[in-house]
């Protein structure tokens, strides 16, 4: 048993450990159990995960969380402070701000998820090519990454929006391209690290072709830090997406995108604090939660 746990991490790299019958529970189940215990011991992480799950639920089934209409308001109830009936108060048209935040989650999170996906796919592909092919490909991609890092990401996004026009999908593409460089960098470093390891050498020596080595050994083993980066980038992308939607480049007005909600409260700063503060705090909570989860993922990666 002890010997097995000692050797397990080394073997885990080189595909399945084979049919060696072991009395211990299967690898996956044990890892889940360890993961659950790890999370339960950290209240901060638990809260972060709860926040992300809650917001995801808002995005999927908003009507479960609020019965109020996010678009149509009751003019008689305009600019009411937060109360039992209106948790986040109401805006200048009498619309329930909490309902708008809940319904806005799907807009904001969909744009964010698309942005992360764009960054992840393009960035990982570039990083993979650079780390795997080396040579001049690595040099060219490395220079490209340097250039993307030299332009502040919001200005790069704004340049792309200038060319593409406004709208949530365009914002997502713009934000995603802004994070390509980071993904490419991390992926390249991971691929370089993994492809010099002994098990990759062993797989090559036993006649496995490069594509198979890549798919079966390099990618799974370099996914840890990339996963941590996905969580981190999710937080960054929420910030970028809501900043662009604050500037008015996202979904047009009546839609309750989070950045636009905060922006909509600008004219009522003196009288209705809840219009900017409460949606803003929701954004902060989501970003903090994503960063916390990212830190936990990074740490488990280091431990292994």
């Amino acid at each position, binding site marked *: 048993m002890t010997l097995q746990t000692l050797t397990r991490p080394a073997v885990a790299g080189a595909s399945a450990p084979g049919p060696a019958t072991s009395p211990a529970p299967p690898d996956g189940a044990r890892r889940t159990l360890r993961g659950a215990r790890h999370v339960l011991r950290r209240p901060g992480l638990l809260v972060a995960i709860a926040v992300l799950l809650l917001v995801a639920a808002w995005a999927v089934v908003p009507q479960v969380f609020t019965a109020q209409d996010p678009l149509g308001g009751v003019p008689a109830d305009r600019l009411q402070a937060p109360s039992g009936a209106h948790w986040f108060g109401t805006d200048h048209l009498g619309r329930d701000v909490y309902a708008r935040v809940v319904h806005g989650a799907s807009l904001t999170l969909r744009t964010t998820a698309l942005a992360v996906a764009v960054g992840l796919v393009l960035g990982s592909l570039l990083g993979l090519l650079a780390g795997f092919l080396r040579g001049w490909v690595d040099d060219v991609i490395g220079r490209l990454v340097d250039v993307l890092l030299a332009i502040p990401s919001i200005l790069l996004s704004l340049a792309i929006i200038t060319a593409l026009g406004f709208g949530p999908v365009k914002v997502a593409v713009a934000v995603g391209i802004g994070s390509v460089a980071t993904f490419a960098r991390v992926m390249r470093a991971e691929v370089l690290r993994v492809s010099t390891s002994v098990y990759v050498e062993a797989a090559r020596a036993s006649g496995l072709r490069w594509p198979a080595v890549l798919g079966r050994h390099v990618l799974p083993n370099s996914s840890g830090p990339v996963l941590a980066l996905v969580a981190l980038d999710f937080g960054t992308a929420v910030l970028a997406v809501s900043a662009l939607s604050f500037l008015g480049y996202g979904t047009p007005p009546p839609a309750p995108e989070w950045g636009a909600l905060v922006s909509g409260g600008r004219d009522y700063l003196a009288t209705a604090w809840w219009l*900017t503060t409460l949606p803003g705090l929701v954004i902060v909570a989501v970003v*903090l939660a994503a960063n916390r989860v990212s830190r936990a993922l990074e740490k488990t990666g280091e431990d292994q």
Partner: protein
Amino acid sequence: MTRYVLRRAGQGVFVLWAAFTVAFFVLYLLPSDPAALVASGGGEVSQVDPAQLAALRAEYGLDRPILVQYGDALLSALRGDFGDSYVSGASAASMVAQALPETLKLTGAALLVAVVGGTAVAVASVFPRARFLRQALSALPPLGVALPTFFVGLVLLQWFSFRLPVFPAIGNEGAISLVLPTITLAVPAGAQLAQILSRSLRGTLGEPYVSTAWAKGASRTRVHLAHALRNAAIPAFTVLGVIVGGLLGGAVVTETVFSRVGLGRLTVQSVNQQDVPVVLAIVVFSALVFVVVTLVVDLVYPLLDPRIQLRAPRAASRRATSRTQRPTAVTA
């Protein structure tokens, strides 16, 4: 030494050229038609006379092959000419130059506040003996990184302009109008700096030379400030280019929130009107700032740390920057 400087400068010029190229092709090759935008005067694109459109294309040289346009634009850009604004007709470079001073004031002040504040928070998060105090202070930088710039700006406005009328809510008049925007802009930059610095400080405090300093009987303050901080500051110093770039980007939102005149407002205005030459000029300018700051940092930091030699191989410096950059969120 000279060869090193020349090579680094050459790399900087290359990055600048590539930034121009990337921005040019993004702005000129993507679907929207600049001539139609000019003809519509920043309004609706739909009803534009085709003959007028063709005339405009000819006037701006947009009817030529894209590579000819690119070569021409590059040559002009080398002379500092980025073409004329589609909207106002003024030269894009002069519009940037005109907007620049106000933004320089803002970003300069924010950089100062971010460096001083970030350093103070980082030191304070390792200095106290009480564990809970250290932990509470260590939570500040991650919080600062998670705050949207527009949110910070609006909350400050709410409290210090409307509730307590201390600072003006909008405008560029006098130093007092600079206070709230400066704080707003400094929060993410300072938090980013504090994150890097406090991680680096924790590493440094475990170094043998710190133990030696303790053993020689140096005071707590002296160990932290004279021994640990000086060495820990170097990784934070290397990301100065990223921080300054981030400040320029942050100015876009900050100047919008506080209705200030400046480069950020010009950016928003140009993006709204799809004023391609001005956007190109701004992007290239921000890349220039990044390149210059990074070059200066690269040349100065061997002076701060004699262990680093100027002829250090490229791979080493690249590794150093990637290590310090990766774990911090770049805030919008």
